[in-house]
């Protein structure tokens, strides 16, 4: 068994063992990580386009899940998410046609915010978090 086969098997096992909630967080985190890597190296256009495509697929699934209103997501949130999904479609096209790192900023930010909302976090990424404080500063030297 090659390394890649082994890795894939491990990934599959990991996927089936994950709860849907963890899976969803993983998917958002993956989109953020791919987009950040793409923003760091726009010259690798293949990777840049692949990151945008993955993110678009994520948001297309959100579109299709939400456009079939199952009543699980309240109307206001549903509308907001669909509006964001349309902005993401537009922004993805803009970013593909004009390869510039700054086009990805909004996409990264939106994914982070939604992922945090789903995890029940009420603080924005710009607000200080208790666990972000330098712990060693409180320890006796």
């Amino acid at each position, binding site marked *: 068994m090659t390394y890649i086969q082994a890795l894939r098997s491990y990934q599959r096992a990991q996927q089936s063992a994950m709860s849907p909630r963890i899976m969803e967080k993983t*998917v958002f985190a993956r989109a953020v990580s791919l987009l950040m890597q793409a923003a760091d190296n726009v010259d690798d256009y293949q990777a840049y386009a692949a990151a945008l495509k993955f993110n678009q697929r994520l948001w297309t699934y959100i579109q299709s899940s939400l456009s079939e209103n199952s009543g699980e997501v309240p109307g206001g*949130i549903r509308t*907001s998410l669909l509006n964001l999904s349309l902005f993401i479609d537009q922004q993805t096209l803009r970013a593909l046609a004009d390869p510039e790192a700054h086009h990805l900023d909004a996409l990264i930010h939106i994914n982070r915010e939604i992922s*945090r909302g789903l995890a029940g976090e009420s603080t924005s990424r710009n607000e200080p978090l208790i666990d972000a404080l330098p712990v060693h500063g409180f320890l006796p030297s």
Partner: protein
Amino acid sequence: MAEIAIRSQATSALFALAQAQKTLKLSAERSSTGLRILSPSDDAVAFFSASELSARATRLLSIKDKITEAAAITGGTVNSLNSIINLVNQLKAKAQSALASTVSTTVVGDVVTTASADITTTLAGAVDGDSFDITYSGTTTTITNNAAETFTSLAAQITAISGLSATVSDGNALTITADDGSDVTITNNVNALATDLGLSTSTNGTNASSTAIETAETAYDVLRTAINTLSGDAGVHGVNLISVNPDSLTVSFNEDGSTAITVAGIVSDTNGLSITAVDSANSFSTQAGITAAIVELDAALVTLQETKASITASDAVFDSRLSFTQSLIGLLDEGAFKLVGADLDAEAALALATQTRLDLTLSGIGLILKDSALTSLLSIGFGAP
């Protein structure tokens, strides 16, 4: 054989155990496939509504995939064109720095014993009224050995030509210099005065030996070759719109091809851009040669910008296809909510994302995606390490 009697309580307990095992097996199957519902017999209504959902996702994706692929090809091409533009600007910088290192052209005649002596009486073969022509910078001027003309006064006639200077002194050669390094062409006019003076045409002879110029020419040609490599490697998904033999990109957005767009390829290698090599032709040995190279580069930059405009002209069509996606979603329950997403600017979208995070937190919703979508995304997102 004795019969084992099973009491009714035991029977129902066994039945419950069998049911529990069946549920356990089903749940294991579901978690391994990532699907909540496996077959129509499981839950017919839920199964068909789930297939409907995935059909919608498939339809949305198929529209977007075509737009995304086309935009990725044009965007990737623009990225390569930007790199080529960058290279052309570097070439221009090389040419401009070479301009600063040009060496003057020099024409050296025979040694003159006495500069103030009359030419006709001291120079063998010379008579009053004979002459030669100097062609420099596109203008021809006749230099004449008038009556009582000395070597010094003849040099003064040459110095009067703008851009040229001539010097002569006792025991030294008559020397004509063009500071800009351009050609100085000398031809006999009346009789053979130029030959008598030992002057012959100089075609930048001294310039090509300049090390700075040689280095600049070599560096220029290396950069020039890099343009060809870039244009040759500019393919995205197997489509190269700017190579020597460019492809054209045809995207049809529907099955009968009635809504299709074709983006024509444009040759953008150094031949297509008319950027010529300089080293073998010693083009940088004259200022005029360097200026000609800069003119070529400026024209190439204009061409590259036009190519970019032509390749991005299709973006408007992609935009209109995205509006179609919006209408597909919007049609589902018209009037129930307002979709404005495509009109949001980045700032408004960020504010909306923050508001949505707070709404999600308050409502306690933990999931917005179906299991099947999550499994699909995980397999794509981590499928190719």
